[in-house]
């Protein structure tokens, strides 16, 4: 395929993906907006007002970056895992496999679809947060970089999950039993400084700690971890996930007999 044809194929997959989550917006976009609003009300306003400052900011200001990042991670992941597994389940993935679309275009189409949903929901959550607090962006560059890298990483992770999944149970196990606990323990609601040394050390094994803190640095200018190290970790795992996803598509594992 020529580059122009590949671009058409990419845009076709992307358009299909965006249409899919917009068509079922009560399942895809609304829940995050409602859940995050509840977090803002309960943790930010009601409980947060009694907690006082954290990291030099009001508790509400402290949790907002983490909650936005939580929405980005869960939405970019779940969009790709449910869409790609769905196409495996109803065999419509064969439409792509019989066509001349290169594997990287297929992957990019699904991943960018997941990224756009992550960004869409992040925008909604950010707008909702403005009802509760004022946001000052410390570094737009870091915010944009972290959002794009993180949503790409978790969209790729969703893709890998979808390739291995054999049933709808398999696409909910990772988000429920791995992703959600890691997010909650990733410093969304608290600073690592509050943890005893041992648990702070254990927390540093959690990749979500770097994601949340890098984004918090971009918004508030404070972080529990080094920004450079955090970006390096996110970048490393993104490249790793991309290479592995390409390997899965190339080998046809779980896709071709």
């Amino acid at each position, binding site marked *: *395929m*020529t580059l*122009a*044809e*590949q671009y*058409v*194929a990419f*845009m*076709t*997959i992307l*358009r*299909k993906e965006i*249409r899919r989550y917009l*068509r079922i917006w009560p399942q895809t976009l609304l829940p995050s907006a409602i859940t995050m609003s509840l977090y803002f009300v309960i943790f930010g306003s009601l409980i947060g007002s009694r907690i006082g400052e954290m990291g030099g900011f009001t508790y509400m200001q402290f949790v907002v970056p983490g909650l936005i990042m939580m929405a980005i991670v869960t939405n970019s992941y779940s969009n790709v895992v449910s869409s790609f597994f*769905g*196409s495996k389940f*109803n*065999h*419509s993935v*064969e*439409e*792509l*496999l*019989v*066509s*001349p*679309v*290169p594997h990287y275009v297929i992957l990019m189409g699904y991943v960018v679809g997941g990224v756009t949903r992550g960004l869409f929901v992040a925008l909604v959550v950010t707008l909702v947060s403005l009802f509760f607090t004022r946001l000052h962006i410390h570094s737009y560059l870091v915010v944009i970089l972290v959002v794009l890298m993180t949503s790409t990483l978790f969209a790729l992770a969703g893709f890998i999950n979808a390739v291995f999944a054999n049933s709808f149970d398999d696409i909910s196990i990772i988000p429920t039993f791995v992703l959600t606990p890691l997010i909650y323990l990733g410093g969304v609601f608290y600073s690592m400084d509050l943890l005893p040394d041992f648990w702070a050390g254990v927390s540093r094994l959690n990749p979500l700690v770097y994601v949340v803190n890098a984004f918090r640095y971009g918004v508030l200018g404070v972080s529990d971890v080094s920004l450079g190290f955090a970006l390096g970790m996110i970048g490393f795992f993104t490249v790793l996930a991309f290479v592995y996803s390409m390997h899965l598509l190339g080998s*046809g594992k779980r896709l*071709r*007999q």
Partner: protein
Amino acid sequence: MIPALTIENLAKTYADGFEALKGISLEVKQGDFFALLGPNGAGKSTTIGIICSLIAKSGGTVKVFGIDIDVDFPLAKKAIGIVPQEFNFNTFEKAFDIVVNQAGYYGLPHGLAKERAEKYLKALGIWDKRDVQSRMLSGGMKRRLMIARALVHEPKLLILDEPTAGVDIEMRRAMWDFLRDINAKGTTIILTTHYLEEAEALCRNIAIINHGSIAENTSIKELLRQLRREVFILDCIETLPGQVAIPGFDVRRLDEHTLEVAVEKGQQLNAVFAGLDSAGIHISSMRNRANRLEEMFVNLVEGGA
């Protein structure tokens, strides 16, 4: 002229050890209407799956219009349109979107994709269902949707895996006319079907796969010439006597108005009529007991030909 499809020593052994294809070879000429027949599990769908990349081969070569799929599969895929046996589209998408998206996967710009989708949805008589979610379509409409989807990039080779399964007779005839038309315009067609009258009506050449090997690969005319025995059903005007015999023929009385007569290769039907006429039996109509290709097919797959 380069063949539309060349398969040499194609082999497939699945992970569970089942040997679906045992090194088959066949060639389909450009412009041909080719039937790929065989009993369930013979290896037809495996062969098609390998040609269109849904199944990885274990050995052998496949060339589509001279392009080796091991060398440039994307280029080979551009020449192929596939209509699979099972419905394989997103049932929540609209018929029009399914066809337009497929065109996009082949790199057709969005405007052209829409034009082509309209052209083929109209040609297959489902344009008025374009905005209907595909799950709401009838079985016959779903089959036609898959044909429109396979044609949207205007492939030179169209492969149909049981395209008329579950389709009513009227619709099947309409699909036959459509396929004859696109074949006449130059599209090479490979068809698998369990309706042998369909293969006989449409196809010029045939390969029969059995247990992963090619049992026969010839023209349909030549295959039918090999038929050693045909059985005819004769409807008689008068009530038949208890015993009917025609010298040299195997005759069975099915009921008081129906006879079954077996005619071996080399025997003449005239002799049957002469024998019946001399016995005072007059025939109002006659037909083959089974489709002639079906008789041949059964002989081949049961090893009795």
